[in-house]
């Protein structure tokens, strides 16, 4: 793939680098990279990859642009709010570099489509915002033998690692199991807007190095970044012989959606009350034989402190197993959280521990704020 005169000028600062040069730039032009998630990480990663001249750049995201995304997701601007992310990102990236081919995949990455989607690319950049998607992407990359540049963020902290097939550990070697519901995402925890800028730019750097086969990749090394302390740390970790997907006797040989990844579109596994029903349950308390339910808020302490339902008690989800003895075993318990995801996990945990009448608030406190009481502050 030779470069046109316009491309030679566009990429002239790359061509000046002996590590890249015309041959390297042609390699980038021939390369296909998929960015999973057009969010905080996917924005800088895809912008830099497009600017760098990666010939085919895929963006997978099934979400729409929300006003609250603009604080960190530089692919979008105010006029993009409400538009589909994949298509909107495609337009922005194509405007940045009309020499490349940007492909919009406006689909949710699932077990059923992951191999086909990822299999069409040489290198995968994971900027998804859910743990279950991270495992799905990791497992697909191991099964397909594709390099993966993974990063994640939380508040002021970021982490990143690279997986190279046959050359080092995978994401599952580092964190063998998902802890869905335990690690809150950006929507639930907040994030410094510029933080994913650092980590997404790091991901683009790693992907370009892999495509050019230059430098030392972040293989078997976890990089962490603490924006408050302004510190980077590097940790060495090894491939696990017993890794479920890349180990010597893998148990994951095909992809499956985790139960949590379908939370949005399959019936909840535990009884749910909606916000209006919960208000009635609380309002009826004391006026009849019906005992008022114990309302347990399973959000983190700081979320609870920002605003909560009157009379609710706070047991963060991570503490629930240890503190489950504080719950009544016979009387009804209703778990609440921000969006109704952690509360379902709470139902599961407490039911397993012998709490008999569990339910949770459908749609969480966001639904309560939207339909019952807009004065509640949901952090």
């Amino acid at each position, binding site marked *: 793939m030779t470069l046109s005169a316009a491309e030679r000028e566009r990429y002239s600062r790359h061509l000046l680098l002996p590590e890249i040069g015309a041959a390297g730039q042609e390699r980038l032009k021939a390369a296909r990279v998929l960015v999973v998630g057009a969010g905080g990480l996917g924005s800088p990663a895809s912008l830099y990859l497009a600017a760098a001249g990666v010939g085919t750049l895929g963006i997978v995201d099934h979400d729409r642009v929300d006003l609250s995304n603009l604080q960190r997701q530089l692919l979008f601007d105010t006029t993009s709010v409400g538009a589909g992310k994949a298509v909107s990102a495609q337009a922005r990236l194509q405007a940045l570099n009309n020499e490349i081919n940007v492909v919009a995949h406006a689909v949710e990455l699932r077990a059923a489509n992951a191999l086909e989607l990822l299999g069409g690319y040489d290198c995968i950049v994971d900027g998804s915002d859910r743990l279950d998607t991270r495992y799905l992407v990791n497992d697909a990359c191991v099964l397909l033998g594709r390099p993966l540049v993974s990063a*994640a963020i*939380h508040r002021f902290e*970021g982490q990143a690692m690279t997986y190279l097939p046959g050359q080092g550990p995978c994401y599952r070697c580092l964190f063998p199991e998902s802890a869905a519901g335990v*690690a809150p995402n950006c929507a639930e925890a907040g994030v410094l807007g510029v933080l994913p800028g650092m980590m997404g730019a790091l991901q683009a750097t790693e992907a370009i190095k892999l495509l050019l086969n230059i430098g030392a990749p972040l293989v078997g090394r976890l990089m*962490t970044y603490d924006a408050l302390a302004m510190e980077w740390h590097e*940790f060495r970790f090894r491939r696990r012989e017993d890794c479920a997907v890349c180990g010597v006797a893998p148990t994951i040989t095909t992809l499956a959606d985790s139960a949590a990844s379908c939370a949005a579109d399959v019936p909840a596994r535990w009884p749910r009350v909606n916000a209006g029903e919960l208000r009635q349950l609380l309002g009826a308390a004391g006026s009849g034989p019906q005992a008022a339910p114990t309302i347990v808020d399973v959000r*983190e302490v700081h979320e609870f402190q920002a605003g909560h339902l009157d009379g609710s008690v706070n047991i963060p989800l991570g503490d629930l197993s*240890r503190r489950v003895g504080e719950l009544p075993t016979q009387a009804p318990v209703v778990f609440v959280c921000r969006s109704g995801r952690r509360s379902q996990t709470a139902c599961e945990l407490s039911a397993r521990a012998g709490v008999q009448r569990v339910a949770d608030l459908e749609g969480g406190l966001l639904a309560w704020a939207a339909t019952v009481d807009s004065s509640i502050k949901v952090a």
Partner: protein
Amino acid sequence: MNTVRVPSPLRDYTAGVGKINAKGTTVSEILTDIERKHQGMRFRMIDEQDRIRPHIRIFINQREVQSLGEAVAPRDEIHLICALSGG
């Protein structure tokens, strides 16, 4: 006394502080000391069978801890790492 780095998801237990002190000659003793000062934090990292939870890694300086019995030297820095999900 050893310095312990606390990952962002566990800073609710340390009033937002990212660097705490703990003393002990093994990882287990360090964790016990952490629990004494920041109640509930150990359980977020270690399960009932004294295993490190699968979304948590513990490093002594740059080296990954495999078992809680591993020795900690006086100036070692302990890093608690938690899987992050945000993107």
